[in-house]
């Protein structure tokens, strides 16, 4: 298994390199280092000398992808791509347009982000499984039908409306929780409770419906019939056998949720004023700060790849039949 994991990690690094290349090419397709310098120095009427100096100071005076003047490995190494992208793999993200260190900013903002995303993920998973098991238990009845209809209705509503509606109802009208803001201490829960609830509720419709389909598929398999024939009650069958086997597709699905979680936080963080990575990204997008966007793309993809590997590990735990090789 360890050799498998090593291979996966290496493949992941290769993918990250690809991610980097994509964002790099996208950016320099429309921008040249000269443009960047002029934009940073302000205006079009900047002397070529100061542009050159700006480029030299920041290492933008090198060729983009291939340096024909350099020797040996320098042909690839002494380029902007290499100098700017490789440090990302060891966590050096450079500085943003307003001169702040991106890595430091990320370290500072990861806490609030996790405080929001982790409860949403865990609570959401738990509630989705419980609700979908309930619907599976009552399958074919009116309760099931109503549940499915409600799920479709819930997933047809844009996530933005959950946030706006929740904020309006609980913060503005009922004044139960503050509308937005954050506190670095334990007091933060007052600011987090509403975003967490909204995050969970907005994912409930789609999740429950999907998990229900998975459980329904399981329930027709032979081993379930055997379990019933043994005389196990329906609750035991569902809770012990179906749940355990249904977990595998659920785990796979959860990985695709990890980047989505990131996106969900992106919106709700900026709505609730939580100083996390999501709001950082949104601000960077809106102020067109490319360095930050690129760093966040890098981190987002790294998270996704870590998630993929974690799923594989979780697979072996949930289903002993799966052997990683």
């Amino acid at each position, binding site marked *: 298994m360890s050799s498998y994991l090593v291979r996966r990690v290496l493949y992941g690094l290769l993918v990250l390199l*690809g*991610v980097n290349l994509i964002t790099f090419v*996208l950016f320099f397709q429309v921008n040249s280092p000269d443009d960047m310098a002029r934009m940073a120095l302000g205006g079009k009427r900047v002397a070529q000398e100061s542009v050159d100096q700006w480029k030299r100071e920041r290492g933008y005076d090198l060729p983009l992808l291939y340096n024909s003047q350099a020797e040996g490995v320098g042909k690839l190494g002494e380029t902007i791509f290499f100098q700017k992208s490789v440090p990302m793999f060891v966590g050096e993200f450079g500085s943003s347009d307003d001169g702040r260190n991106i890595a430091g900013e990320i370290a500072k903002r990861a806490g609030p982000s996790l405080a929001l995303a982790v409860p949403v993920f865990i609570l959401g998973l738990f509630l989705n499984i419980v609700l979908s098991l309930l619907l599976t238990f009552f399958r074919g009845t009116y309760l099931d039908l109503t549940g499915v209809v409600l799920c479709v209705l819930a997933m*047809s509503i844009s996530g933005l409306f959950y946030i*706006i509606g929740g904020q309006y109802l609980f913060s503005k009208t009922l004044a139960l929780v503050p509308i937005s803001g954050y506190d670095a201490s334990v007091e933060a829960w007052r600011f987090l409770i509403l975003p967490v609830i909204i995050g969970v509720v907005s994912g409930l419709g789609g999740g429950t419906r999907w998990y229900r389909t998975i459980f329904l598929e399981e329930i027709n398999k032979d081993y379930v019939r055997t379990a019933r024939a043994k005389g196990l009650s329906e609750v035991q069958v569902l809770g012990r056998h179906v749940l355990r086997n249904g977990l595998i597709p659920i785990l796979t699905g959860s990985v695709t949720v990890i980047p989505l979680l990131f996106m969900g936080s992106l919106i709700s963080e900026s709505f609730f004023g939580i100083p996390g990575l999501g709001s950082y990204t949104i601000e960077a997008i809106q102020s067109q700060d490319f360095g930050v966007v690129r760093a966040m793309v890098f981190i987002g*993809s790294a998270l996704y*790849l870590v998630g993929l590997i974690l799923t594989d590990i979780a697979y072996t735990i949930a289903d002993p039949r799966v052997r990683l090789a």
Partner: protein
Amino acid sequence: MMPTLLLTDALIWLLVFGLLAYARSVIKNPLSRASWGLVFQSKIASASLVVLLLAVVITLLDSVHLRLNSEQQSRYASPIISVLDVALGPLAYEREKSYSAPLATRALSKESMEVDGKPVRDYPRLKFGGVHLSDESNKAQDLLLRAYQGTLGGAVLWAFFLAALWVIRRAMAPAVAQNSIGVFTGSGAYQAVVWTLFVLCILGGVVSKWAEAYHVLGTDKVGVDVFYIALKGLRTAMLIGLLTTLLTLPVGIAMGLAAGYFRGWVDDVIQYIYTTLNSIPSVLLIAATVLMLQVALDANPDAFASSVEKADLRLFFLCAILGLTSWTGLARLIRGEVLKMREQDYILAARASGVSSVKILFSHLLPNLMHLILIAMVMDFSGLVLAEAVLSYVGVGVDPSTFSYGTMINAARLELSRDPVVWWSLVAAFVFMLLLVLSANLFADAVRDAFDPRARQLKQSLVRV
């Protein structure tokens, strides 16, 4: 007025012709006719289809553009208008000063005016909403009268549709007699269509009668009728949903087929590409690309004749970018299926008898994948509509001058913190989006049930348990 063709117009009409061609092939092929027959047997799916068709009609009306000459321009805000604008008449160009509530006759905020020579601070009368009323206390009565007239008009329209449906059903009768599944036979689907049409006709009649003299859903910050914005937003939403799928399909299909069929290094490369694209959180990839596009557009301001064309190009690129990030799912799906199918006897037989790879791919494998592609297409639609709203909200979606539900929601942030609260734009966006996405979701479900043999099995076993 000169007809003019925007890029997205051309593509959407191309798509319509493609769909018509597909419909023709369905009618010819008994197998797919049977599957579609199953879709049309579902009450919910038939009712949703009616709603979706209405949205399509509005989109198509809004996708025929006319260029105004200089003297006609005075009324409209932009030099290019659509047939929908012409059809909506005054709604398209009447502008109040600022916010006004739904069906109001007076503005939302007070203003200093001169009444009988004395300065007064009061809510001014609107320029267009309810101007025909000499006495505002008659508003309720006027609304009732208009509702009554609208209902009558709607009923007439409904009768017209009923007659059309009756003719279609008569024409279908031979198909039913031949025991092949026709449209609208049994299981109440016909009734569902009739009643959905009834609700839409009556509602449409009343609303159109009211819209002649009032702002049915109020006005926004710059005094544009919200009902008009919501109707225009429909085109943006539909376009994002439809065009993106159109742009996704060729790439997804080609990549999936190649990866599954050729395996080896082709498979490795394609898998690497889609893992890489997949691993970038899509909103960030889209944001980064749109950001770059914005830079390029700002750098070449002379390339576009008007702001409408610029906004249109941005909409097209948004679809393209969304397509770029969403072909991966389809490719993976197709790859998996092809890996299974290529070992089946009929493919082996074809290969043994020397059929070329290209021919095997396109005339043996692809037709057997059509149901998967169709399901993926209809399932993606609603997700894309929702994604557009989020992206426009973040500021990397459509051009700010384009009417869309995302920009409406974005504006609602400030409107909700006003006092008195401006709720109507948000509610309008909510209702329109919900109706569109809900009917798309329900329709997609029915399509999946009808075309996915496994889902059908599941349903049957449900009945048994």
